Protein backbone atom coordinates (compact mmCIF):
# COMPACT_ATOMS: atom_id res chain seq x y z
CA UNK A 1 0.00 0.00 0.00
CA UNK A 2 1.38 3.46 -0.88
CA UNK A 3 0.07 5.30 2.17
CA UNK A 4 2.15 5.87 5.34
CA UNK A 5 2.81 2.70 7.30
CA UNK A 6 1.15 2.03 10.66
CA UNK A 7 4.31 0.50 12.07
CA UNK A 8 7.88 -0.20 11.04
CA UNK A 9 7.93 -2.83 8.34
CA UNK A 10 9.43 -4.04 5.07
CA UNK A 11 8.17 -2.43 1.89
CA UNK A 12 8.96 -3.45 -1.69
CA UNK A 13 11.28 -1.09 -3.52
CA UNK A 14 12.92 -1.63 -6.89
CA UNK A 15 16.32 -0.07 -7.50
CA UNK A 16 17.58 0.64 -10.99
CA UNK A 17 21.13 -0.52 -11.66
CA UNK A 18 21.79 1.52 -14.82
CA UNK A 19 25.55 1.63 -14.43
CA UNK A 20 27.49 0.94 -17.58
CA UNK A 21 29.67 -1.68 -15.92
CA UNK A 22 26.66 -3.68 -14.66
CA UNK A 23 25.35 -5.99 -17.37
CA UNK A 24 22.72 -7.92 -15.43
CA UNK A 25 20.34 -7.16 -13.70
CA UNK A 26 19.05 -3.81 -14.95
CA UNK A 27 17.03 -3.44 -11.76
CA UNK A 28 16.46 -5.51 -8.62
CA UNK A 29 14.11 -5.63 -5.61
CA UNK A 30 16.07 -4.04 -2.81
CA UNK A 31 13.15 -3.32 -0.48
CA UNK A 32 13.17 -0.59 2.15
CA UNK A 33 11.99 -0.23 5.73
CA UNK A 34 9.29 2.28 6.43
CA UNK A 35 6.98 3.23 9.26
CA UNK A 36 6.97 4.90 12.66
CA UNK A 37 8.88 3.66 15.69
CA UNK A 38 6.40 4.10 18.48
CA UNK A 39 5.61 2.42 21.81
CA UNK A 40 4.80 -0.31 22.40
CA UNK A 41 7.30 -1.96 20.08
CA UNK A 42 5.17 -4.97 19.39
CA UNK A 43 6.03 -8.40 18.06
CA UNK A 44 5.29 -6.94 14.58
CA UNK A 45 8.75 -5.43 14.47
CA UNK A 46 10.75 -7.95 16.50
CA UNK A 47 14.09 -6.41 15.63
CA UNK A 48 14.11 -3.93 18.53
CA UNK A 49 16.71 -3.61 21.26
CA UNK A 50 16.58 -2.54 24.89
CA UNK A 51 18.43 0.58 23.75
CA UNK A 52 15.52 1.49 21.48
CA UNK A 53 12.92 0.77 24.18
CA UNK A 54 14.75 3.08 26.59
CA UNK A 55 15.10 5.86 23.99
CA UNK A 56 11.32 5.71 23.42
CA UNK A 57 10.79 5.72 27.19
CA UNK A 58 12.86 8.90 27.49
CA UNK A 59 10.73 10.57 24.80
CA UNK A 60 7.55 9.41 26.48
CA UNK A 61 8.73 11.06 29.71
CA UNK A 62 9.17 14.34 27.81
CA UNK A 63 12.94 14.27 27.27
CA UNK A 64 13.59 15.36 23.66
CA UNK A 65 16.11 13.23 21.74
CA UNK A 66 18.38 14.72 19.12
CA UNK A 67 17.85 11.52 17.11
CA UNK A 68 14.63 9.48 17.47
CA UNK A 69 14.49 5.73 16.85
CA UNK A 70 14.32 5.01 13.14
CA UNK A 71 12.86 2.09 11.12
CA UNK A 72 15.84 0.50 9.37
CA UNK A 73 16.96 -2.82 7.92
CA UNK A 74 18.29 -5.18 10.60
CA UNK A 75 18.90 -8.09 8.23
CA UNK A 76 20.13 -8.05 4.63
CA UNK A 77 20.73 -10.60 1.91
CA UNK A 78 23.11 -10.51 -1.02
CA UNK A 79 22.51 -10.02 -4.73
CA UNK A 80 24.23 -11.57 -7.74
CA UNK A 81 25.45 -9.07 -10.33
CA UNK A 82 27.24 -9.72 -13.64
CA UNK A 83 29.79 -7.00 -14.37
CA UNK A 84 31.93 -6.11 -17.34
CA UNK A 85 35.50 -5.70 -16.14
CA UNK A 86 36.88 -4.23 -19.35
CA UNK A 87 38.27 -7.61 -20.33
CA UNK A 88 35.28 -9.83 -19.82
CA UNK A 89 32.30 -10.62 -17.68
CA UNK A 90 32.52 -11.31 -13.98
CA UNK A 91 29.86 -12.79 -11.71
CA UNK A 92 29.89 -11.09 -8.35
CA UNK A 93 27.74 -11.54 -5.25
CA UNK A 94 27.34 -8.24 -3.46
CA UNK A 95 26.50 -8.53 0.26
CA UNK A 96 23.89 -6.40 2.02
CA UNK A 97 22.02 -5.43 -1.12
CA UNK A 98 18.49 -6.53 -0.17
CA UNK A 99 16.71 -5.51 3.03
CA UNK A 100 15.07 -8.62 4.49
CA UNK A 101 13.94 -7.61 7.98
CA UNK A 102 13.25 -4.26 9.61
CA UNK A 103 13.58 -3.01 13.14
CA UNK A 104 13.56 0.15 15.17
CA UNK A 105 16.97 1.44 16.26
Amino acid at each position, binding site marked *: SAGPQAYCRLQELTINLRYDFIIVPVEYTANNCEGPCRRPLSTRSPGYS*SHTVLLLEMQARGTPLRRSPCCVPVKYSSQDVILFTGEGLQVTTYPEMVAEECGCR
Partner: protein
Amino acid sequence: PVGNRSCVFYETPHNLQGSMRHQGRLLAGAEHGTILCHSSHCCFGIWNQSHGRLQAVMQGCWGSDRDGCDSPACKTSPVHTAGVIFQRCLCRSDFCNANVSQLGAPAAPQGEVSPGNGGPRVGL
Protein backbone atom coordinates in the same frame (compact mmCIF):
# COMPACT_ATOMS: atom_id res chain seq x y z
CA PRO B 1 44.59 -7.04 33.77
CA VAL B 2 43.55 -5.82 37.20
CA GLY B 3 42.76 -2.10 37.41
CA ASN B 4 43.74 0.19 40.24
CA ARG B 5 40.57 0.34 42.26
CA SER B 6 40.00 -1.59 45.48
CA CYS B 7 36.48 -2.03 46.78
CA VAL B 8 34.84 -3.85 49.65
CA PHE B 9 33.27 -7.09 48.43
CA TYR B 10 30.22 -8.63 50.08
CA GLU B 11 27.23 -10.56 48.71
CA THR B 12 24.38 -11.59 50.96
CA PRO B 13 23.99 -15.38 51.08
CA HIS B 14 20.19 -15.04 50.99
CA ASN B 15 17.96 -14.55 47.97
CA LEU B 16 20.67 -13.44 45.58
CA GLN B 17 20.71 -14.64 41.99
CA GLY B 18 23.94 -14.13 40.11
CA SER B 19 27.06 -12.32 41.28
CA MET B 20 29.24 -9.30 40.52
CA ARG B 21 32.37 -11.29 41.45
CA HIS B 22 33.33 -11.38 37.78
CA GLN B 23 34.08 -7.63 37.79
CA GLY B 24 37.31 -8.02 39.72
CA ARG B 25 39.78 -10.28 41.51
CA LEU B 26 38.94 -11.22 45.09
CA LEU B 27 41.79 -10.99 47.60
CA ALA B 28 41.62 -14.10 49.72
CA GLY B 29 41.78 -13.73 53.50
CA ALA B 30 41.01 -10.02 53.59
CA GLU B 31 38.79 -9.14 56.55
CA HIS B 32 35.79 -7.66 54.79
CA GLY B 33 36.52 -9.16 51.43
CA THR B 34 38.48 -6.94 49.12
CA ILE B 35 38.12 -6.97 45.38
CA LEU B 36 40.47 -5.37 42.84
CA CYS B 37 38.39 -4.10 39.92
CA HIS B 38 39.31 -5.50 36.52
CA SER B 39 38.48 -2.59 34.30
CA SER B 40 36.61 0.19 36.08
CA HIS B 41 37.46 2.62 38.87
CA CYS B 42 34.00 2.34 40.36
CA CYS B 43 32.71 0.65 43.51
CA PHE B 44 29.04 0.07 44.33
CA GLY B 45 27.04 -0.63 47.44
CA ILE B 46 23.44 -1.67 48.14
CA TRP B 47 21.90 -1.58 51.60
CA ASN B 48 18.50 -2.65 52.81
CA GLN B 49 16.99 0.07 54.99
CA SER B 50 14.41 -1.02 57.52
CA HIS B 51 13.47 0.30 60.95
CA GLY B 52 16.12 2.96 60.60
CA ARG B 53 18.91 0.41 60.22
CA LEU B 54 21.06 -0.25 57.15
CA GLN B 55 21.96 -3.83 56.32
CA ALA B 56 24.54 -4.36 53.54
CA VAL B 57 23.23 -6.60 50.78
CA MET B 58 25.83 -6.23 48.02
CA GLN B 59 29.16 -4.42 47.73
CA GLY B 60 31.76 -4.76 45.05
CA CYS B 61 33.21 -3.46 41.77
CA TRP B 62 30.89 -1.85 39.24
CA GLY B 63 31.69 -2.78 35.66
CA SER B 64 31.75 0.73 34.16
CA ASP B 65 32.89 4.24 35.04
CA ARG B 66 30.14 5.71 32.86
CA ASP B 67 27.02 5.00 34.91
CA GLY B 68 26.95 8.04 37.18
CA CYS B 69 30.06 7.07 39.16
CA ASP B 70 31.29 10.63 39.72
CA SER B 71 31.44 10.98 43.49
CA PRO B 72 34.51 9.87 45.48
CA ALA B 73 32.20 9.20 48.46
CA CYS B 74 29.18 6.92 48.82
CA LYS B 75 26.18 9.24 48.59
CA THR B 76 23.14 7.02 48.39
CA SER B 77 19.75 7.44 46.79
CA PRO B 78 16.79 5.37 47.93
CA VAL B 79 14.45 3.21 45.90
CA HIS B 80 11.13 1.81 47.16
CA THR B 81 10.20 -1.48 45.66
CA ALA B 82 7.50 -3.92 46.83
CA GLY B 83 7.53 -2.43 50.30
CA VAL B 84 11.32 -2.64 50.64
CA ILE B 85 13.66 0.37 50.72
CA PHE B 86 17.14 0.01 49.27
CA GLN B 87 19.86 2.63 49.54
CA ARG B 88 22.43 2.41 46.70
CA CYS B 89 25.51 4.27 45.56
CA LEU B 90 28.30 4.21 43.02
CA CYS B 91 31.57 5.89 44.03
CA ARG B 92 35.12 6.16 42.82
CA SER B 93 37.75 5.94 45.52
CA ASP B 94 39.31 2.97 47.27
CA PHE B 95 36.87 1.22 49.64
CA CYS B 96 34.38 4.09 49.26
CA ASN B 97 31.59 1.49 49.33
CA ALA B 98 32.51 0.28 52.81
CA ASN B 99 30.02 2.67 54.44
CA VAL B 100 27.37 5.16 53.50
CA SER B 101 28.79 8.67 53.78
CA GLN B 102 25.62 10.53 52.88
CA LEU B 103 22.20 8.91 53.17
CA GLY B 104 19.59 9.82 50.58
CA ALA B 105 16.21 10.75 52.09
CA PRO B 106 13.58 8.08 51.29
CA ALA B 107 11.14 9.54 48.74
CA ALA B 108 7.44 8.55 48.59
CA PRO B 109 6.92 5.14 46.92
CA GLN B 110 6.63 5.50 43.11
CA GLY B 111 3.98 3.77 41.01
CA GLU B 112 4.82 0.16 40.24
CA VAL B 113 6.38 -0.24 36.79
CA SER B 114 6.33 -3.81 35.54
CA PRO B 115 9.29 -5.00 33.48
CA GLY B 116 7.05 -5.56 30.46
CA ASN B 117 7.28 -3.32 27.44
CA GLY B 118 7.49 -0.38 29.81
CA GLY B 119 11.06 -1.28 30.78
CA PRO B 120 14.18 -2.63 29.09
CA ARG B 121 13.58 -5.67 26.89
CA VAL B 122 14.17 -8.31 29.49
CA GLY B 123 14.58 -12.02 29.32
CA LEU B 124 13.06 -12.38 32.80
